């Protein structure tokens, strides 16, 4: 059975390594913070200018002056640092952030990503997404494998306006885990109860099944 959002987040959390500085986008990526493995210390970077983002505040302790990139009230942690937006994107651009997790509308089998605009509908803007995908050393996309009509979102090429070129390294969808290599999407894990046939049927982009493919685990 396909994963729910929490399970996608849980699987992505296994990608975190001790000492990582991590930027988590809005949506499913935000949930990753709830599943950081025991013994793994990571520091969350919020691109509006906060390193060491803590959990939501207790009711009554929220501050209008302390929010994350999703405009949610958050807290600092011991060892946090606050800085301006130029420095925030400076550290992102300089490759100091080890891992960026973000959502996508479409991903192409060469690593192109589209997640900021649907022509003809509302243009909300790219926010920090273009900066993040242009600069991050390691980008994992959390997404649904298909849209509501059942159309694949893992494509030979993006149909929507591009956010960044050849930047996505890995996709964790509700159906499985896919590295992006010269072989296109390389399926290395499938969700419990999901068949390779279903993945093949729902992946429009070039798909390779890794020899070592196995069922997804949620802890190491």
């Amino acid at each position, binding site marked *: 059975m396909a994963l729910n959002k929490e399970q996608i987040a849980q699987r992505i959390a296994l990608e975190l390594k001790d000492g990582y500085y991590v930027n988590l986008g809005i949506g499913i990526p935000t949930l990753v913070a709830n599943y950081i493995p025991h013994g793994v210390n990571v520091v969350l970077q919020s691109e509006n200018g906060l390193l060491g983002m803590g959990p939501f505040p207790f009711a009554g302790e929220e501050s209008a002056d302390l929010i994350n990139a999703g405009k949610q009230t958050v807290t600092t942690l011991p060892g946090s640092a*606050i800085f301006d937006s130029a420095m925030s994107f400076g550290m992102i651009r300089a490759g100091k952030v080890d891992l960026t997790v973000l959502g996508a509308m479409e991903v192409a089998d060469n690593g192109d990503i589209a997640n900021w605009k649907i022509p003809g509908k509302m243009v909300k*803007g790219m926010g920090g997404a273009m900066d993040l995908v242009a600069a991050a050393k390691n980008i994992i996309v959390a997404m649904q494998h298909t849209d509501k009509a059942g159309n694949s979102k893992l494509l030979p090429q993006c149909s929507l306006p591009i956010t960044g070129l050849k930047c996505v390294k890995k996709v964790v969808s509700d159906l499985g885990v896919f590295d992006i290599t010269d072989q296109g999407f390389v399926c290395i894990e499938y969700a419990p109860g999901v068949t390779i046939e279903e993945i093949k049927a729902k992946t429009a982009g070039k798909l390779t099944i890794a020899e070592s493919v196995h069922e997804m685990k949620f802890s190491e």
Partner: protein
Amino acid sequence: MNKVFANAEEAIKDIQSGAVLMLGGFGLCGIPENCIAALVKKGVSNLTCISNNAGVDDFGIGLLLQKKQVKKMIASYVGENAEFERQLLHGEMEVQLIPQGTLATRCLITGYGIPFVPVLAGVGTEVAEGKEVVVRNGHQYLIEDAFDSDYALVKAWKGDTMGNLIVKDTARNFNPMMAMAGKITIAEVEELVQPGELDPNFVHVPGIYVHRIFQGTNYEKRIEQRTVRKPE
């Protein structure tokens, strides 16, 4: 050398219709509430606003949009504002979208006297259209220019009468760079203090960048997404 103004009305008195303004803040966090209210009251129009966001329908820059005072919005994310959408779709307003880090860096270089900066963000996207591209070390970079604005309106937590500013928490965001980038920088602060009350080591914006300062009043400091956790 008096930089202190009585209030927002006095501080923005010479801002005319057609002005190009930078406005600090991220979402509704750290926005120059008093200056925005004074601009609404003054009724100047055809403004170009450079700001990361465009506020919400009834707060922040949204208040200027309601009154149709904005001709052009230069921002990175405007997705919290239905009136914005309506004006954009009806062709009542121009919008130029810029990646957030590029926006921040363009402000920074303006304040540092650097005319342009090469950035990776936007290469191969719509953002690159019409822009000069250079190649270094095998990577393509877009050439992005410094801003040429008339005024920067910023919000700080504390400031002294010499214009030194301290910002608080993530209300820092774009405020320091926009303060540095303004031809005329107007800072509103929650608390205006005398020189000597701020530690020189922990000033976020040196006074040389600030031309006018006033203590704001009645800060609403609205929260856009109030998220809390359960008591433990």
